[in-house]
């Protein structure tokens, strides 16, 4: 049972990593460590800024 749970956790860790879902946690961890005084954005704010950045600086997809 515990190995099943571990496997599930590894899978979700991987999928959320590849899709970028865990980027918010990563950003918050970064802020806490490097800029502990900075205001931490909410999830909603983070994703708005994220897509705004993508709007201004698009990445290519391959053929």
């Amino acid at each position, binding site marked *: 049972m515990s190995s099943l749970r571990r496997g599930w956790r590894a899978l979700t860790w991987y999928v959320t990593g590849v899709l970028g879902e865990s980027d918010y946690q990563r*950003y918050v*961890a970064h802020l806490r*460590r490097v800029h502990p005084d900075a205001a931490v954005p909410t999830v909603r704010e983070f994703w708005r800024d994220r897509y705004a950045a993508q709007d201004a600086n698009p990445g290519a997809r391959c*053929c």
Partner: protein
Amino acid sequence: MRSPEHVELVRNDPDLPPVAVIDRRPMTTGKKLIFAAIGVVAAVAWALVAFVRGESVNGAYFVVAAVGTYVVAYRFYARLIEYKVVRPRDDRATPGEEHENGQDYAPTDRRVLFGHHFAAIAGAGPLVGPVLAAQMGYLPGTIWIIIGAVLAGCVQDYLVLWLSTRRRGRSLGQMIRDEMGSIGGAAGLIGVFVIMIIILAVLALVVVNALAESPWGVFSVGMTIPIALFMGVYLRYIRPGRVSEVSIIGVVLLVLAIVAGGWVADTPWGAETFTLEPVTVAWLIVGYGFLASVLPVWLLLAPRDYLSTFMKVGTIILLAVGVIVAQPAVQAPAISSFAIEGNGPAFAGSLFPFLFITIACGALSGFHALISSGTTPKLVEKESQLRLIGYGGMLTESFVAIMALVTAISIDQHLYFTLNAPATLTGGEPGSAADYVNGLGLAGPPVTGQEIQAAADSVGEESIVSRTGGAPTLAFGMAQILGSFLGGSAMTAFWYHFAIMFEALFILTTVDAGTRVARFMLSDTLGNLGGPLKKFRDPSWRVGAWICSIVVCGLWGAILLMGVTDPLGGINTLFPLFGIANQLLAAMALALVTVVVVKKGYLKWAWIPAVPLLWDLAVTMTASYQKIFSPEPSLGYWAQHNAFREARAAGETSFGTAADPAAMDAVIRNTFLQGTLSIVFAVLVLVVALVALWVCVKAIRAGGLPTTEEPDAKSATFAPSGLISSDAEKEVAAQWTAYYEENPDKLRTGTHA
């Protein structure tokens, strides 16, 4: 701690655990035996693929030969490149660590980054190219997809990734300018833009050919747009940040859309509404490209990208399982007569150079150089991981290409050519198509018109005659393979449309992202011209965004419409241009890499990028030469152009496959444009190659030259190099874990083993 012989631990700070493990331990006997065994198995599989004749060859041999070769190449050749050229230094901070901002610069676990990078490089190219190349038989394609990837494609991806990682993640165009001066840089920039346009046009043409006259396909692919919009709104207003949740909802809706497509296409109303002419589909795609370029990313582009990633990985796994479980028998010959005589219906030209042009992305893809410079370098944790991500990522792509090839060569040869010969040859009807393919002298029993129609019915399509472009062929093959063990004949039509759906999804994702990137390139270039155009530099200026989007969509849309209405059958005239463009981009990237390797003084190892560069130049220049100068009208654009002009001047009202004067004028126009583009591509790449040669000579004379590599910054973190951590790496990682437990304020993300 235990520090075995040949393992060196590098510290940058005496108070911190080591930041790098330099492991020079020789291979253990056990490992040597394992690699020897893998090598032997791969060699046996190669021998079976190459020499077994008469009896049908099993599709699974190809998978074994490929995987065995990849393992050996990754362990030995990629290692050689690492030792002699890349010389990674893990005590140096990567851009991700040095400039970490938690967003675009962020050290990311190597396994996650591998998935990320692979999702960015994998697209429809490695699926479509091998399918078309199957007209030459299975052997040439197999050899090039595997050997080409090992010696050329992976080398390019790995080394461009390395260059960009040592330059703060700068883009390919910028690096060409920095290392080769402004002339090379300008040629590179224009080249990238023109190539982008032609790639978008040809990929869109593949989608048009897959969706035209297919109500099922149009409905289910069209539904992806409302699904994406729903996902975008969900992510913005309902549950922000729940990316995997919304992706799963999206995939379920997508599967429903495929099933519903079958019902809709069965109703008279649905069949009438969604049966569209090719030209209509083309206009819809141009309109879609424009919308995607001007709408905000969160609404359409981002959610489509999530869907695309999910479908990409899922379908590739499904296809791999399918090939291994179903083990389809190969129907194609080892080498067909078209390879030698160069008169194939899917694309013209003989094996050299056109096989290499056609396979393109599966073995060597210039487009990857754009991905490898930019995003991925800003996310990598350690230089020693570049081998896994760059070289390993491209090996995976080559594997996808091999599976696409196996799928195509396991289709009945008569049906394969029914699908892939242009309508001007097949006549567009099952009966005439049967006559045509039976006259090709293919192996196997002749086919009848009824059998062709039955094949179309089995996948729920009106017709499978002249569905060129590769996507319908791949979908047809996949439907047969997957249907053979998942759901049987009842599910074949579902699997066909599933495959069409994911190919269209890939391509439309490339089209919308590519249009956006091209739009930004255009507005940057205009803005840099100065004067009143300066305004274009401001990305939030909506008018500028609209103007540039219209120009970009207009450019690729014009080429797309030209291909759709081409009396000669769009794919076989345009696909070579796509392949040449892609391979020329690879030549630019490899030229850059060679220049840097020579500048750094690694002259002895310059052959590692120089051999694929010279090969690629030989292929592309021969192909360009033939496309420009060949007197054979089916091959040379200008020969075709002149033949039609002369016929028109002589007052003829029909000529060759053009039935009326308007069609003749269309051919004259199209061939002029295609011929001109061929010349432009060839000249741009020759400029880059000559500048590269000049810089190399200068560097050799001077005994090496400075490069624009960023100065060292000291790393203060650790991460393992390979997919699986070694014992020494695990020990160091444990030290870091203990260190972070004592100093929780220092904790960084992405430092686990």
